[in-house]
């Protein structure tokens, strides 16, 4: 068990211009924490993980595991175990040999290896398959062997690089819960990379969002959802994505389709003191509701209704300035509006509106 910290760690790939795959990453992971690195592809999340594993050089800054600086330590000296996206099982070894390989290299006595492999296999429900070769296993079983290979070593840090992306949707949800429970039980510091924000939100104690190699925000899933630090995080976290539109400012609020949506005083004054005439206005689909005819609301033409059972997502066009923008509203599943119908929508509460700087994307609300 150990804490992990990245201190100004960068990875620069040669080229013209050089690509800063991970740029000045500062991140502290507490002992026993489950931290998820999330971001779109090319955001540097896998590179950041590989830097910690020692598979990728650290060009600037340092990386520490425990209190030890491991920046220039080869992978085998770092006491880490990694689960690869492709699992990378040794095809010529049996499941038991795969799981015990690291221990064998370390010179652990055979009886002890056998014991530990059996223990991990029991934990992962692999006991029956110990003598099989990986090619005789299903995708889910292979994934568990890859997990087992990591567990057997009792490392101080687990590194997981999109370990679920090759599983089918149902198995993924199941395995997701299993991994989270396993981590809870073992209490091993875990860094988990995914591009799937649902995985990130459900599994991580904290989630670090990366974009273009730069850390955008690192916080608990709740905080990321409620107070995204910038427009990118706001749009990336949450499904369906937040409605993010640039709208002109009025003295009391934001101007949408001729009406003024009231904003919180602090946010408004922050925007006004920055001298902005327009802001990026963000509101989650569930923070919008259908308004009754008498109420003041924003006119929207329904273009698409996605029924999810418990609720429905209504996509529609709203006039902003001269153009029209698409909004998504989460409504009660039993009474969704019809396609092509004109409805009125309203913000549930002014406190649920997020305001961002239109150029920098920084959060204006607090």
């Amino acid at each position, binding site marked *: 068990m150990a804490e992990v910290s990245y201190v100004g760690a960068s990875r620069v790939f040669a080229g013209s211009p050089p690509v800063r795959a991970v740029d000045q990453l500062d991140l502290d992971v507490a002992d026993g924490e489950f931290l998820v690195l999330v971001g779109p592809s090319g955001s540097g999340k896998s590179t950041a993980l590989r830097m910690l594993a020692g598979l990728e050089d650290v060009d600037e800054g340092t990386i520490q595991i425990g209190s030890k600086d491991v920046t220039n330590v080869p992978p085998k000296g770092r006491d880490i175990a990694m689960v690869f996206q492709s699992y*990378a099982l040794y095809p010529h070894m049996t499941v038991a040999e795969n799981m015990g390989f690291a221990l064998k290299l370390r010179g652990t006595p055979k009886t002890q290896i056998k014991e530990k492999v059996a223990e991990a296999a029991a934990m992962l429900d692999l006991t029956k398959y110990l003598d099989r070769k990986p090619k005789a296993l299903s995708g889910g079983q292979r994934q568990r062997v890859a997990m087992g290979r990591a567990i057997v*070593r009792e490392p101080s840090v687990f590194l997981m690089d999109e370990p679920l992306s090759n599983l089918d949707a149902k198995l993924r949800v199941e395995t997701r819960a299993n991994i989270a429970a396993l981590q809870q039980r073992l209490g091993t510091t875990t860094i988990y990379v995914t591009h799937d924000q649902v995985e990130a939100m459900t599994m991580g104690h904290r989630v670090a969002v990366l974009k273009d190699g730069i850390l955008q925000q690192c916080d608990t899933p709740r905080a990321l959802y409620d107070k995204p630090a910038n427009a990118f995080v706001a749009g990336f976290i949450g499904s369906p994505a937040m409605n993010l539109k640039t709208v002109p400012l009025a003295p009391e609020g934001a101007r949408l389709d001729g009406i003024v949506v009231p904003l919180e005083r602090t946010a408004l004054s922050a925007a006004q003191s920055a001298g902005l005439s327009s802001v990026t206005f963000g509101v989650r689909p569930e923070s919008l509701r259908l308004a009754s005819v008498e109420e003041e609301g924003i006119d929207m033409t329904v273009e698409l209704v996605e029924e999810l059972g418990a609720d429905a997502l209504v996509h529609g066009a709203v006039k902003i300035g001269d153009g029209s923008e698409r909004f998504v509203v989460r409504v009660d599943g039993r009474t969704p509006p019809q396609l092509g119908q004109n409805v009125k929508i309203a913000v549930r509460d002014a406190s649920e509106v997020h305001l961002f700087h239109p150029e920098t994307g920084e959060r204006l609300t607090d």
Partner: protein
Amino acid sequence: MTTTLDRPPVNTPGAGEREKKTARLRASRIALHTFLIAVCLVWLAPLLWTVFASLRTYEDTAANGYFSLPSELTLSNFGKAWETADLPNYFWNTLVITIPAVIVTLLFSSFVAFGVTRFSFRFNLALLMLFTAGNLLPQQVIITPLYRLFRLIPVPEWINYKETLLDTQLGLILIHIAFQIGFCTFVLSNYMKTIPNELTEAARVDGAGVLRQYWQVILPLCRPALGALATLEFTWIYNDFFWAIVLIQTGDKMPITSALSNLRGQFFTDYNLLAAGSLLVAIPCLVVFFALQRQFVGGLTLGSTKG
């Protein structure tokens, strides 16, 4: 081939049309099989002819010619060839040359292939090209300088009492290794490129050093390529006559290929005997092929990654 021919018609045409189609299929199938049989026969003819000749006596073919029905068939030529040509001794010589040469060639070329494919360094492509280009040198061109070089290289007396590399089996082994390494490196490096990089990365994280990655992860996965190469190399080195005849001068150090020429008289050659000798000499290659055939299995890396 036949599977495509057996495929049922996709749209069901009228009965007459269907008949026409089956007729066409049958005709094309007959043509195909005729062609295949013809090729097989042309391919096998020299071998079968050798077997046939080896089973006849010299007197028989001398009287009736080779294109005739035999008066009797006998295995006596084989026994005679075995003794006359002193085959056991030469078989041993060949093994002493071939087996170390094949093993060392595969070992060295797999080292090079591992180095150039699993690590990225400045000159790895250049190095691979160098090894591959070495293949292109024609042996006949460099034989003279090599001959002179071999004469100048000293070896301890217990290897060769003349104390030169020339006229030693060691020299022959070295020249085979040098000449075959290029091809083997080329094949092995291409094979190793197909092994996913994650496997070596996983091994590194598991704590394997470079040698272990090579020996315990990469090499076992190269088994099909190594098996195929071992067979090819064995056959090539075994069949070598050129290097042996130039670089070895003492008769009893010669490999088996030269022993065959012992069956040839100066004024007269018993071709039936020679045929029997040739067949005997060919046997080890077949043995090696069948022994290593099990290794030519595809899909060895199957299962390392996603389902």
